[in-house]
């Protein structure tokens, strides 16, 4: 076989190897992208269907023009949560703040997180979840975790992926302790509800 023919075969083989590898990577990226677009929409819906009972008589909360959503940890949403800024929760705009788990050691940041109304906990080690839960314990804050371990650590809502679809579990005991009233619609649609010990 001539040298040119050999070269052509090598080129064709390289292209055949590189194209599927790239396609697979893109597929994985787009699946993750889609997952967090859907999770962002879930977070918005959860905020729509809960009542911050503990803040009902809080004049500061009633007069506020926004509700604050804090994302704690390595932000998996990218800029996907920005679309929430155009939406409203009970006539209040949505403000989004980002923190890392190491911010939980900082007193100022701790205060800021405790002033938020919803906290999204990104996937983390159990110790980080425990630290966050210690901070949020019995505070009127809706806590949502990126994985199902989160509700065992005392969080209120935990996401999971089941059969390729996003689903969620609810710890209604934690919700009650935090004075958060979760709409029955959410409880009915949850995969698992932990309630009344």
């Amino acid at each position, binding site marked *: 076989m001539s040298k040119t023919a050999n070269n052509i075969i090598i080129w064709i083989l390289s292209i055949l190897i590189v194209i599927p590898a790239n396609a697979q990577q893109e*597929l994985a990226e787009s*699946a993750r992208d*889609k*997952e967090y*677009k*859907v999770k*962002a*929409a*879930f977070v*918005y*819906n959860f905020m729509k*269907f809960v009542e911050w009972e503990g803040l009902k008589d809080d004049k500061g909360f009633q007069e506020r023009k926004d509700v604050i959503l804090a994302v704690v940890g390595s932000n998996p949403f990218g800029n*996907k949560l920005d*679309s*929430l800024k155009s*939406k409203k929760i009970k006539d209040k705009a949505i403000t989004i703040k980002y923190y890392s788990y190491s911010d939980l050691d900082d007193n100022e940041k701790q205060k800021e997180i405790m002033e938020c109304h919803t906290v999204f906990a990104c996937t983390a080690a159990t110790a980080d979840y425990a630290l966050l839960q210690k901070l949020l314990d019995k505070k009127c804050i809706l806590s949502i975790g990126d994985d199902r371990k989160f509700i065992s650590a005392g969080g209120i809502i935990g996401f999971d*992926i089941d*059969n*390729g*679809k*996003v*689903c969620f579990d609810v710890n209604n005991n934690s919700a009650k302790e935090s004075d958060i009233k979760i709409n029955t*619609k*959410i409880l009915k*649609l949850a995969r698992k509800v932990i309630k009344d010990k």
Partner: protein
Amino acid sequence: MRKLDNKLKIFLIVGIVSLCVLVTLVSKYDDVFGHNRLPDNNERNNMIENAYLDMSIEQLLEVVVDETTSAAMSRESLCKLMNDSCVDIII
């Protein structure tokens, strides 16, 4: 014969270049005038994000975010359902 080959080459090159110019002009026309313009990636992403935000929880629960897992799970459920005969199905 060699002269004919050269003419054919020139004809092909001119043809391909003209086609490229035509395609570029048409796409520019669409970009500028928005005539049948398809949304770019950013616009498409925004549209999809907004579509998800307008969905109910019931609808969101039905969105398949990981088609590979979903397909694998479907196969798994099918196997469970058909028990031992799953090998025959795969074949």
